């Protein structure tokens, strides 16, 4: 990394303000996350409409989806939020070892979350709960009005959880990068903007899942 790029990533202690009392990189991440709020709000809004205007296409909670498994997966994501915030607290205190340990744990928990989601997808597809009407036709089912859920249910379920899973995947890749940088001694108590920005994104992913879990799995 060039010195110029490295300097741009530093978390300044004083300097030109963004007007919001935080450094520019952090403000940029918040603005990005707000655009993500609108993105997921649109998805959730569309889901609500489709769900309540086509009740015959959607199964009752727990009939198709494995709620206990996903509740456990939700807990894993919550655990990863704790390790992420602990990583931030450790580097704020200047503890390099703690930073590396908690960042590594966060990445690992993220990978476990994705693994469980992949297992869930695999099981659902095997049971005939697929993403689109074409797949239902291929399986010899029309899906309409089926207790186990129709194409609309599959399409909305895989769209919402899939987009979230994509966000988690990107988060895990960034976490692995951040962890490598931490092992190289990139972050210090005075310069840990990268960890803070990473944390904001990761917590947002957790926050979105909390909402999705309730709407998709419990209601």
């Amino acid at each position, binding site marked *: 990394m060039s010195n110029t790029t490295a300097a741009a990533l530093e978390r300044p202690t004083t300097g030109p303000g963004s007007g919001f009392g*935080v450094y520019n990189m952090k403000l940029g991440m918040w603005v990005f996350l*707000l655009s993500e709020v609108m993105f997921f709000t649109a998805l959730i809004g569309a889901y609500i409409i489709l769900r309540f205007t086509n009740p015959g296409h959607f199964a009752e909670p727990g009939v198709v989806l494995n709620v206990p498994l996903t509740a456990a997966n939700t807990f894993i994501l919550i655990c990863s939020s704790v390790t992420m915030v602990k990583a931030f607290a450790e580097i704020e205190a200047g503890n390099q070892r703690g930073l590396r340990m908690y960042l590594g744990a966060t990445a690992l928990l993220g990978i476990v979350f994705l693994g469980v989601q992949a297992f869930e997808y695999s099981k659902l597809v095997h049971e005939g709960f697929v993403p689109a009407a074409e797949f239902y036709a291929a399986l010899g089912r029309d899906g309409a009005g089926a207790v186990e859920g129709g194409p609309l249910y599959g399409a909305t379920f895989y769209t919402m959880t899939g987009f979230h899973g994509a966000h988690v995947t990107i988060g895990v890749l960034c976490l692995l990068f951040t962890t490598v940088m931490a092992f190289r001694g990139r972050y210090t108590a005075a310069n840990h903007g990268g960890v803070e920005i990473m944390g904001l994104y990761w917590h947002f992913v957790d926050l979105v899942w909390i909402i999705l879990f*309730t709407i998709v799995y419990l209601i």
Partner: protein
Amino acid sequence: MESVNLTADAGHKGPSYFLVFIILGVLTLVEVAVAFVAALPDTLLILILLGLAVWKAMLVALYYMHLRFEPSKLWWMVMAPLPLGLILVGIVLIEGW
């Protein structure tokens, strides 16, 4: 250009992350229990579940994302689009029905 102290958020007394974690875990258990054990009318059930979800999301935003300890300007900037989200959902709902 205005020069500001950008470390104001770093000086706060840290929240008990573990306590927030316990609350999030308990609320998740309560959600599942309410959804599958409690025999409640649909509307009440949905309101309770959404309330619990928003509560959990707020805990994450306030304590893990440190929003509670950020400068008020940033706090307002983050809160400002939320009504837009509600408007979006509201319009979609109206269109749908």
